[in-house]
């Protein structure tokens, strides 16, 4: 074990310092808005009883990176400290949990409704229409990006509810790695492995069930701090300067402390998409 740790330390210490290659998917031009839209097929599953899966047909992407300020698909931030390997940023974003309870999340705008097809849960269940509505929450906090080398980075984010909706915190830790695919020109494969941490108060607010919450049942559920492992893989192949083929799959596994909620009928959330992306 110590041998592997020593090897890891050497790797981290002596690998060439990461730089930003203009052609790389992980770099953005400074002070320019970037818009792209992907046309294809896919789905973002909804784990809630009575919640709608979100079919993905048109998927927009919007980002802007200034010298310090940045906006990247819903994440607004300001980089306070930046060097070759580390970036510390203050960030804010809408909490995504509410999206499962509503049709009006930004990510739901470009798609049409489709009923959830998952009904395999054997436990007692409550439909989201039977409980009080949940509110949107605005989170804010800090983010650290650590660029270990050109193809590998670590991202850690810790956010608090600044809108006093659920009065808790949420965090994220992920390791991302990018490789070029042999024998396929202009292609890139990226992997991400990590975990999301949701505080007891967050889980309790969105997935907890109080006696007075539901008029239709006596079931109650109290959420606990949850650690949800997340994995994603993305493949892109540039066809021209503006068109590229994209495949994306992300899976989030819900901790039992969340998945045992009677509101939830699936312990995993998948996002799958295959399509053509056009960059404006």
């Amino acid at each position, binding site marked *: 074990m110590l041998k592997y740790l020593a090897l890891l330390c050497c790797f981290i210490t002596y690998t060439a310092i990461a730089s*930003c290659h203009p052609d790389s998917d992980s770099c*953005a*031009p400074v002070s320019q808005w970037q818009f792209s839209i992907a046309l294809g097929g896919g789905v973002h599953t909804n784990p809630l009883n009575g919640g709608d899966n979100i079919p993905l047909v048109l998927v927009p992407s919007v980002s802007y*990176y200034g010298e310090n300020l940045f906006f990247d698909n819903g994440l607004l931030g300001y980089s306070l400290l930046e*060097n070759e390997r580390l970036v510390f940023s203050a960030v804010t974003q809408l909490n995504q949990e509410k999206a499962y309870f509503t049709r009006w999340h930004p990510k739901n705008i470009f798609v049409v409704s489709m009923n959830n097809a998952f009904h395999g849960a054997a436990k007692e269940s409550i439909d989201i229409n039977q409980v009080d509505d949940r509110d949107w929450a605005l989170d804010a906090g800090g983010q650290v990006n650590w660029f270990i080398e050109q193809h590998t980075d670590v*991202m850690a984010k810790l956010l608090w509810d600044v809108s006093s909706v659920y009065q808790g915190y949420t965090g994220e830790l992920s390791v991302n790695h990018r490789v070029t695919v042999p024998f396929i020109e202009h292609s890139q494969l990226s992997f*991400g492995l990590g975990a999301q941490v949701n505080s007891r108060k967050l889980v309790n607010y969105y997935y907890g069930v109080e006696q007075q919450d539901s008029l239709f049942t006596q079931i109650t559920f109290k959420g606990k701090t949850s650690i949800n492992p997340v994995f994603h893989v*993305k493949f892109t192949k540039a066809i021209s300067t503006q068109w590229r083929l994209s495949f994306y799959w992300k899976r989030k596994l819900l901790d039992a402390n969340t998945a045992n909620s009677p509101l939830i009928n699936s312990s995993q959330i998948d996002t799958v998409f295959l399509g053509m992306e056009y960059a404006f």
Partner: protein
Amino acid sequence: MRFKLGVKRWLLIAGILSQPLVNAKEVVFSISPTICIVNKMGEPCTMTVNVNWQTPNAGDYCLYQDTEQLTCWQNTASIATRLNIHLQQNMVFSLREQNTILAQKQIRVNASAPRKFRRKLRAQWSVF
């Protein structure tokens, strides 16, 4: 009588409280230039700076770069010298007597040309 004693007491307290402020005001500290230019942000910057300081009393003073001690002078009341410094980001330089900061200045690191690209800080694609 009671009033006069009160005034004296207040003057004494005010005198004690204002002592560090008076000293701090009498310390003259300058470091120049205050901007270090690099080709692009993140690159290490090395330059020679002029350091000048003057204190009312001779003593043992040290120059710090952030929390790192660069050099010290014993039983000295003023200095005009040149120093080589290395920095990679904005840094505060301070003149200290033991652990007390007497004066401080910041040296900023600026890129000569604005960078054209920077790393994205969100790994996931799109809003998902």
